[in-house]
């Protein structure tokens, strides 16, 4: 964390995204990408809200893979629900108690919940202890949904941040 490169990770990802956007590896673009990668973090740094660090970044990949598989499952599930008779759909709201405290882990969990099987995150309570979720097809026992999200996603996110 030097003064010149306050966010080294962002510098690298800005360079990569710039090269991907231009779809080239020419020296000119690499130079321009590097300039952008240095200048943008310098400008943005004062605006930054401190976030917890990824303690185990390798776990991110296995988590991303898990979510990717679940997203594909979610698509098929939702597609079948849409095509089937609409009387079979029993929507409902459920409040999920959170163990996570910081903004970044909660954002990750909320995004995952929205991307995966039949659930959309709708609101976070102001004390950050509960997240309200709309469920497309609620099983008889609401606790099933809560347990599924807590064990499958929240536990993994907790491991990544080790909080």
């Amino acid at each position, binding site marked *: 964390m030097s003064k010149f490169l306050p966010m080294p990770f962002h510098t690298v990802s800005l360079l990569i995204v710039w090269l991907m956007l231009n779809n080239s590896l020419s020296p000119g673009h690499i130079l321009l990408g590097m300039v952008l990668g240095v200048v943008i973090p310098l400008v943005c740094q004062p605006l930054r809200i401190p976030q917890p660090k990824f303690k185990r970044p390798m776990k991110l990949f296995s988590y991303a893979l898990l979510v990717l598989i679940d997203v594909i499952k979610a698509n098929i599930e939702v597609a079948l629900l849409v095509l089937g008779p609409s009387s079979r759909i029993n*929507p409902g709201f459920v409040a999920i108690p959170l163990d996570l405290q910081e903004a970044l882990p909660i954002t990750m969990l909320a995004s995952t919940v*929205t991307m995966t099987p039949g659930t959309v995150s709708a609101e976070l309570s102001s004390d950050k202890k509960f997240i309200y979720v709309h469920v497309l097809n609620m099983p008889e026992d609401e606790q099933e949904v809560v347990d599924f999200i807590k064990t499958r996603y929240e536990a993994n996110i907790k491991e990544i941040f080790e909080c």
Partner: protein
Amino acid sequence: MNDMFEIVISVLLVIGGIFIFVGSLGLARLQDFYTRLHAPTKATTVGLGSVLLASMIYTYATEGYITVNVLLITLFLVITAPVVAHILAKVAMHHQVKMIPRTRNREMVKLARKQLPPTATTGVEEDGRLP
């Protein structure tokens, strides 16, 4: 371009087409705003994903290089879709959008709108009508 590529690209395009169609069908068929929210945010990720993958394979087969712009589209889509869905659900709660009567825990919307935990008993206006 050999047959192998053509088959793979066609299969991907057909899968993508089916999912995007189901997503839009869901918008028309589902009964209230909240359930409609589920169809386009989810059924289109795989749909758009396979169309983009098909486009990537097509450029590889015809031009001989891999375009990465397509990966960026996927990345931005995955980042923005959940945020949009969340904000839409939030706005719907504040506007007290109608929901189908068999929605369970409807009274939670009243608490959620004020960002209160579900255990809260005070702070909810008594005359707050259920949407």
